[in-house]
């Protein structure tokens, strides 16, 4: 089975307080030099059958209508590999 990864990130112009909270915690833990953090979501989809153009198109549709809210989020779809 092939794995397709859908990464979802808040759009750059949208304030990400979760990412900011992580960024503020990093120097307290001794991890310095990190100027910014943004937090996103990663979906790993195990796909039955071939990941052809039609399958990818279906996954893009799922990402656009459901996995991401395109009012506030961007997404990317990529095939991670097959066995």
């Amino acid at each position: 089975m092939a794995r397709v990864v859908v990464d979802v990130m808040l759009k750059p112009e949208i304030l990400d307080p979760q990412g900011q909270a992580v960024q503020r915690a990093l120097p307290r833990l001794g991890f310095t030099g990190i100027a910014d953090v943004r937090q996103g979501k990663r979906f790993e989809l195990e796909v039955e059958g071939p990941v052809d153009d039609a399958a990818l198109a279906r996954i893009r549709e799922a990402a656009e209508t459901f996995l991401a809210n395109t009012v506030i989020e961007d997404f990317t779809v990529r095939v991670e590999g097959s066995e």
Partner: protein
Amino acid sequence: MTTRVGVVTFPGSLDDRDAQRAIRLAGAEPVALWHRDKDLHQVDAVVLPGGFSYGDYLRAGAISRFSPVMGTVIEQAKLGMPVLGICNGFQVLTESHLLPGAMLRNNHLHFICRDQKLRVENAGTAWTTDYQAGQEISVPLKNMDGRYTADARTIDELESEGRVVFRYLDLNPNGSINDIAGITNAAGNVVGLMPHPEHAVEPLVGTGGTDGLGFFTSVLKQLVSS
């Protein structure tokens, strides 16, 4: 015939019974609707209640939006049926694109629970005719994902068309753009807001006030007169 107002129960809805009670106190007949049922059982209006439908997994309201009952609610809302989304219900309405914009995590990342002052900006929607524009009301607010956002063009449109229905007063509890607490669609039949009017309908509980009752009496009047 009595006016029938449906209240949808999704898995994780918390305030469905409070909404039913508010509807009864306003003089209408509350009708329990189940999220898996496409049929609206001849209701005249629908309330999408607060809570954490599907545990807010994925995004608040995102999974509920695809429930069978929402297919019918979306259809009927577009035909003019009054729909009120409270808190999680507002999130379901934005995810459904019945209302523009989206809801984000509160800017301070805390769950917030307080009495909230609001200004009624638009007293012309199906759910606000028993208020007056400029009136200040107090109703409870409790949420985690209440930061309303939309792109600049949408905000301009909402503001210029008078579609911001409620604004937070004194304190913006979540970082919502322009202090927006609630909005309506262009037709004025679909309204969504984060605070909870159904928790302010009896003098003995909640804020101790009944400022929220006007939502339910408004829709009742609108339905009786139409």
